[in-house]
């Protein structure tokens, strides 16, 4: 007799085999292989079919409740789905700030009407969201933000500037932190949802050191934000002036997500590079120093993968310290940066090519540079360490 979970594993594997298009079982090469959905989606062959069948099963968000477009799977089933997708090399059907950030915050803080209104389009990949947190004067000290929302009866009027807003130029809606009380700091912030197509919203892309332009300056010039989008569907999540609670909760999920969960990337860089780098007569990677660093990296990657599994399990069971995502983000991003340093080092001059076709437009170098943002975006490593010191180790304030 198979246990329920074994049956689930067998059925899931069979379903994935039958439904995942062959193109979606190839490794992702660059950003264009990620599917972001939205009002004006772009799809490569196989991407739309894969998104649609997965969304129909609720498996773009397997652990969300079914009534909000999820799959209603338990923690154990979600884990199995992830393991089978990894084993069969199925790509993730949808990349989405809605799934990684807004969704969990709405599930926790949203009203029933808000959940019913906003979550299903996220699960189906129909609405693409961006995050309006940082401002030019408010980065690590996010709660000092100044973008204002003034109550005008049935709507708010929003004015100000956000910066580093990832994909603001491609997003349909924004979850935005605004100041609704100038006399308070943390207790004067609200968490608002509005359409990026609203009059008065403009975006201006910023070029990164990787040469890519994934984020923008975002300007709000007398933007009218209705208080409701229908019966009970408030534009403010939780309550006015209580947005900091929502913002922090969301950051927890964002930080867990940026930590990478140890899930992507080949397990062993050394195994991957030994053939291309060369081996000595004993079959060892031909540079003993590089070999040692590769093996250290293998250990750190496998160790962090165990950490990610434990974090996920304890989080779901309510056994994990609420500030643990900060530790995860710190550790995961620092490992990822080191990993890409090693990839560059192993590649030598070849991976310096920036434009050639052979280098896929300098993909390796651009990816390396992109990882430098990992320990900045979503809260810097230094800020993560501050939070761990204070909230987990209870060290005295300076």
């Amino acid at each position, binding site marked *: 007799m198979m246990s329920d979970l074994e049956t689930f594993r067998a059925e899931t594997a069979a379903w994935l085999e039958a439904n995942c298009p062959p193109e979606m079982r190839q490794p992702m090469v660059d950003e264009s292989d990620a599917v972001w959905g939205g009002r004006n989606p772009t799809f490569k062959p196989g991407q739309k079919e894969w998104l649609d069948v997965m969304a129909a099963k609720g498996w773009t968000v397997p652990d969300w409740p079914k009534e909000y477009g999820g799959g209603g799977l338990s*923690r*154990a089933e979600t884990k199995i789905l992830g393991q089978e997708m990894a084993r069969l090399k199925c790509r993730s059907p949808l990349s989405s700030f809605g799934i990684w950030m807004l969704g969990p915050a709405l599930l926790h803080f949203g009203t029933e009407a808000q959940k019913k209104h906003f979550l299903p389009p996220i699960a189906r990949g129909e609405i693409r969201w961006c995050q309006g947190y940082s401002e030019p004067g408010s980065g690590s000290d996010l709660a000092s933000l100044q973008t204002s929302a003034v109550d005008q009866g049935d709507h708010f009027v929003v004015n100000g500037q956000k910066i580093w807003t990832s994909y603001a130029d491609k997003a349909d809606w924004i979850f935005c932190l605004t100041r609704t009380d100038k006399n308070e700091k943390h207790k004067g912030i609200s968490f608002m949802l509005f359409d990026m197509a609203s009059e008065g919203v403009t975006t201006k892309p910023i070029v990164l050191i990787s040469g890519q332009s994934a984020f923008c300056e975002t300007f709000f010039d007398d933007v009218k934000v209705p208080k409701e989008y229908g019966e009970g569907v408030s534009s403010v999540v939780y309550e006015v002036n209580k947005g900091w609670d929502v913002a922090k909760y969301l950051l927890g999920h964002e930080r867990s997500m940026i930590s990478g969960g140890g899930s992507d990337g080949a*397990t*062993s860089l*050394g*195994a991957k*590079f*030994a053939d291309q780098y060369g*081996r000595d007569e004993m*079959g*060892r*990677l031909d540079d003993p120093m590089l*070999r*040692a660093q*590769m*093996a*250290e990296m*293998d*250990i*750190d990657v*496998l*160790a*962090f993968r*165990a*950490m990610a*599994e*434990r*974090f996920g*399990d*304890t989080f779901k*069971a309510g*056994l994990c310290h609420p500030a*643990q995502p900060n*530790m995860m983000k*710190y*550790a995961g991003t620092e490992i990822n940066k080191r990993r890409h340093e090693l990839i560059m080092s192993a590649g030598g001059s070849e991976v310096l090519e920036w434009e050639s076709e052979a280098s896929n437009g300098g993909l390796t170098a651009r990816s390396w540079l992109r990882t430098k943002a990992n320990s900045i975006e979503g809260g810097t490593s*230094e800020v*993560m*360490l*501050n939070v*761990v*010191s204070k909230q*987990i*180790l*209870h*060290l*005295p*304030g*300076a």
Partner: protein
Amino acid sequence: MPLYLNEDQQMLHDSAAEFMKGEAPVSHLREFRDKQCKDGFSHALWKQFAEMGFTGILIGEDDGGLGMGHVEAGVVLEQIGRNLTPSPFLTTSVAGVEALNAGGKALRDKYFPGILSGDTVLALAVDEGPKHRPDQISMAATREGNGFKLDGKKQFVVQGGSADTLIVAVRTSGSAGDDKGLTLFAVDANAQGLAKNSVRLVDSAMAAHLEFDGVLVDADAVIGEVDEGDVVLRRLLNAGRSGAAAETLGVGAGAMDITVDYIKGRKQFGALIGSFQALQHRIAHLYSEMEIARATVLKAQQMLDEGSSKAELMVSVAKAKAGKATALSVKEGVQMHGGVGMTDEYDIGLYMKRDRALQEFMGDVNYHTNLVAEMHGY
């Protein structure tokens, strides 16, 4: 299986924590060190271990034990590490028992009752030099009558002077470096021709240099099959390494806790030193390393208990990761204690010494890092 302790394991954790803290805290180690105990541990305490059921954790229920796994053994070992408890638990009840579990019923019946009652102590005679190189074993046994004759040297056998029985890994064919040709024996510690020279180590534990001069053993002293000792040795090493990783984790966690406490109480420049960011970031980083090590050790133990084919890889990852994290913990610990960290009066230095010994036990960080590269085929 979720990667945290289940309810039963948590209960075992709580009782092991209470027991070790109550019966064998750091002051117990000091007491045995100061009276220059030759065995390096308390036989009365070992009896108490037995009463708690700890000694039979890895002994099957059919053999009268608790029939638990590596996770449970690790739970006890972490508390041993936290309290720096001197005991023969790791060599006897973890690695030694696991080796005997690979042997026949006659051997198990001979040794398990004494282990269960807290009378028998086992030691592991594997290493032949100052570094752990089990693939380079060269000490040999030759056939003699119905049994074997053992000749050669084993070094740094922890508890080797006080053990009743030695688990000895030797060559019965082939030469150093070969996979096959090893045989493991259970040898009476009082056998004729066996000379033992005990030395005290930096952490106050006792280790012995052993010389076998024509030591005769019966054929029934063979654990498992002749020339197939690699199978037995692998089980012994997996258990010993994951166990040592768990004890190391306890040492690192204990050192971190006392350091966090210390910097919350010490004032300089008119402020608690724990309020200085220079120390906060380092100890928060340490916390992160210790958490990762904890997950890794538990993962390795779960994989061993499940019989996973990748367990051996994860055991090496765990020994290396726990070793690195704990080395950092004791170094930062002494440094953040300032001058008092250098004194014998404060416990932090004892943690540093224990860590150093555990690093060498069954392979240090470099050894296991190299193994990981080999297992990954480069």
